[in-house]
């Protein structure tokens, strides 16, 4: 696990340093910038899906889905990040306490 932690950290840090060192023209192309924004959104969306509806290499529907719905409503109401996360956790904890998977 340490290798994954350190290797991933080095890659992210190296990217930051590269941004400060490489010539501006190399990275500031509209297509590069646009693609980077799309990659960020795609990764986050895929992580939402995987974290919410999969488990042990299979699709899994449980209390997490209801928790995500509550989080979406909280975001629509412009709740701050910490509150969104807390509400989702509380929803899942409550549903499991009531006996849901």
């Amino acid at each position, binding site marked *: *696990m*340490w*290798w*994954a*932690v*350190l290797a*991933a*950290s*080095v*890659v*992210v*840090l190296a990217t*930051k*340093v*590269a*941004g*400060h060192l490489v010539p*501006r023209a190399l*990275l*500031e*192309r*509209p297509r590069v*910038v*646009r693609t*980077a*924004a*799309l*990659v*960020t*959104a*795609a*990764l*986050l*969306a*895929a*992580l*939402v*899906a*995987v*974290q*919410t509806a*999969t488990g042990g*290499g*299979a*699709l899994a529907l449980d*209390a*997490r889905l209801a*928790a995500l719905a509550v*989080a979406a409503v909280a*975001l629509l109401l412009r*709740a*701050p990040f*910490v509150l*969104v*996360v807390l509400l*989702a*956790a509380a*929803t*899942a904890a409550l549903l*499991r306490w009531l006996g849901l998977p």
Partner: protein
Amino acid sequence: MPARSSAADPDPAVRSAVRTALSVSVATGLYGVSFGALSVAAGLDVPQTMALSLLMFSGGSQFAAVGVVGAGGGIGAVVATAGLLGARNGLYGVQVAPLLGASGWRRLLAAHLTIDESTAVATAQPTPAATRAGFWWTGAGVFVLWNAFSLLGALLGDALGDPRRYGLDAAAGAAFLALLWPRLSGDDRRATRTVRVVAVAAAALALALTPVVPAGVPVLAAAALAVVVGALDGGGAGAGRGPGGGAGAGGGDDDAAPVVTP
């Protein structure tokens, strides 16, 4: 130099930048608690969690790294996912480096502090002095508070035990949704629609692939999908195809704008 500028600085623009920096730092630092708790819930120990907050220091990449670890992904998937999510920091560096004019070790420090929040505060300031103050105060403030609250969250998560009982596994999905949310709206309607379509397609692709490929790969496939769409998609605000034209550069600047989480 940042040390000269403070809340007591006579320049009102600098004072305002420092105030903004401090409030952004507190808001961002606080959700370090959720990162710390999720990280230990995913199976990392407290030192590993702190290594991510200290060395990686990029919220989205850190959440992604522990998310992939929690899903059972291998080292390659962890590195690739965190690295791809951190790619935008490189673009921020391109923007802020000329504004800061730092050199030597300060340049290295500035690079490490180049994240969504410091870039957003810096680029929103009206004067060069306020830009530098905004960048350094936000970067340093978030760094200190993010790490302090990561540690608190990791210790709390360790003490809580079974993460499922407290819904911590559900909190991970909510955290990613909160990071994604502000990216789904914007001034450029065409670009925003593309982002939304790609986000939905990415989620669907990841779910469809989960039963058939190793853990971690579905998320990377979603990134590959975005790269293909980005390569094929004709243009942004200008609707023209002129590569590197004046209008195109303007639209590009808009798209590179950092998105601060709510």
